[in-house]
């Protein structure tokens, strides 16, 4: 996949985030790395920077000194207690005296696991350094934040993404038109991973990439619409809204949490009285909380949709 094929291998290959790269290079030079938090939106090079740092620090065999864990897959406290500890406590052979543990999507770790991590970080600082990769550093508990050097990754500027697109197209012998580039930029929101996924998918069509191809492949990849589901409910058709919900959950692999958060972000864009926006936001919050508590996704979201049906009905009656 192009996201991997064109993932930079060394810090020098990272074309953006100059300030961050220069700080990381100084770590390599000193052969010392503090615990770090890499925070920023998706697809801005956080994981890449962590891997490049490790590569430059340890050389080609850096994999032997690095452990990469994804907190969303292994977010329980037991992983921290066992896997992480086992890795962290042994001293590596070589001129660098510590190993690196990259904890991806660290903002998805439970609070318990974060507490356990905090102790582990303290105890094994000699032999292991942690790089926590997260979208929001605010979701990392305070005591960990205070032990880490913060790095803020910003969305890549348009020009940088355009350059990258053009570079890859040249390498892959793909023709892309200006409106194709515009469309990709429009849809990928500064996320380079998404950019490359869209680009590669559009290229697989086998024709020069224009805006139409881009919108068509992205439309096929995301054929569901939260907004559409909300409108269906507001118009009083609960049964169809529920079918749409089921499709999102089962067919497209969205989690209840994804859906509830996206519903929330749509509420204030709806053309309904403010009184109802606030009311629906309140109910959405309650459902969000229930999902966090482990309630059944479909049942809870159905109850939320029924509230939208009720709202649509009341609004039409003018109350």
């Amino acid at each position: 996949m192009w996201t991997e094929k064109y993932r930079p291998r060394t810090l020098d290959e990272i074309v953006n985030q100059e300030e961050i790269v220069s700080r990381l290079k100084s770590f390599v030079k000193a052969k010392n790395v503090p615990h770090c938090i890499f925070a920023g939106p998706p697809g801005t090079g956080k994981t890449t920077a962590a891997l490049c740092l490790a590569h430059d620090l340890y050389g080609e065999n850096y994999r032997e000194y690095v452990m990469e864990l994804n907190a969303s897959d292994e977010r329980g406290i037991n992983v921290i207690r066992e896997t992480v500890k086992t890795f962290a406590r042994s001293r590596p052979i070589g001129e660098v005296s510590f190993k690196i543990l990259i904890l991806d999507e660290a903002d998805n770790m439970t609070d318990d696991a974060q507490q356990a991590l905090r102790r582990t970080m303290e105890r094994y600082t000699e032999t292991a350094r942690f790089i926590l990769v997260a979208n929001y550093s605010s979701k990392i508990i305070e005591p960990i934040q205070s032990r880490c050097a913060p790095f803020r990754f910003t969305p890549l500027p348009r020009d940088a993404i355009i350059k990258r697109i053009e570079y890859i197209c040249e390498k892959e012998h793909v023709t892309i038109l200006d409106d194709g580039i515009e469309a990709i930029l429009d849809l990928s929101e500064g996320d380079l991973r998404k950019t490359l996924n869209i680009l590669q998918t559009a290229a697989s069509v086998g024709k020069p990439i224009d805006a139409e191809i881009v919108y068509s492949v992205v439309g096929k990849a995301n054929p569901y619409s939260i907004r559409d589901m909300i409108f269906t409910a507001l118009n009083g058709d609960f049964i169809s809204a529920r079918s749409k919900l089921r499709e999102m959950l089962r067919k497209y692999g969205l989690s209840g949490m994804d859906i509830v958060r996206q519903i929330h972000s749509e509420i204030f864009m709806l053309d309904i009285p403010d009184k109802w926006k606030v009311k629906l936001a309140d109910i959405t919050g309650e459902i969000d909380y229930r999902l966090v508590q482990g309630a059944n996704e479909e049942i809870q979201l159905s109850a939320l949709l029924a509230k939208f049906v009720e709202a649509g009905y009341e609004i039409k009656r003018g109350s």
Partner: protein
Amino acid sequence: MSSRATYIPWTQKYKPKSLSEVIGNEEAKRKVLEWIRTWEKGIPEKRAILIYGPPGTGKTSTIEALANDLNMELIMSDASTYRTEEAVKRTAGRASQAGSIFGKKKIIVFDEVDGVSGTADTGGLREIINVIKSTRVPVALIANDAWDPRLASLRSLCELIEFKRLSVPEVARYLQRICLREGISAEDKALKFIAERSSGDLRSAINDLQALAQGKTKLTYEDVAWLATRDRKEEIFNVLRMIFYAKNSAMAKSAVNIADVDLDMLFEWIYENAPYHIKNPLELAAVMDMLAKADIYRGRINKTQNWAFLRYVIDLMTAGVAASWSKKAAGWIPFRFPERIKAASATKEERALLEEIGRKIGKKCHISSARAIKEILPYLRIILWNNPKMGKGIAKWLDLDKEMLTHIAEGKFSSSAKS
């Protein structure tokens, strides 16, 4: 939830693997076989057949068994999936033109074509016609009623093949075969009784047999005779009616005692059917709220293993539902089987496979499996459609096996991965 996932319907378990195992309708089966054989000599005049007849007479089984005999790849859609113009193009359009990814011969099947809905499946029938007109692989349509006016234009493009109701001895013989395999010694009279009741519908006969005989070593006429007075399906409907239209909370709560399904299952029935009965939006919201609250208590039971909370689940899902609406029946409304149960049992294995794919992608792309499923998989699917060569290259690099690849390309995942 409950442990029903391990229950395999005998209709699945004893589905014919070869045409020789399909019972009855000899002439119809021969016609289907002959028509498929003509494809070996090139594209025949009629590129599609329309197989029609009452339920449970072996229409779908014949096609599936044949595909298996001739080692053909089945591209199948039935009424459980959307069949809009777009969906038909996606599933059948490409398949009807290109060779299979793995080089197998193909047959495209539209099951339950009389179930293609005019509203929900906009343009679906028209697109099926387009597929038939241009297809380079055999297309089989299956319907109960070939003379449905909506199928008129389809009909003229197809060779019509009729399946008739099975005779009582035919059905009884098949049931006997199942009993032998299950180690059940059954009285002829008992099997004949089930066969008669089925009016030539083998599927319903097998379902009845399983309900009556599973786990037994002997099946007597006495075991089955009560079927005449009592219908299992009716049972759950009565329970639901008692809950939805209860005169008071005591009556609603007592319904739980007479239900012969477990509570989780009863919950699913109530949740599925509530919106079909309760039409007033304010009342529907109140009822769904009751169910959501009952669900919270279920969660608390799970978390604490304190089963004393079960009483609150029951209160909310029965009396809570009944008390939240005005119970004005809007005419007779049929009860529907819970979708979630259908989906959950059908997709348990698929979910496991999907998660495995997510893990494999995640590992290579440095993201979690949930995000891989959400963010990468949809694109990989489209690459596979557009450019199988590129897609297969990626799949190889990701270390996805053939089964995974087929599943991705067919886009038939229908369950979510927990994040």
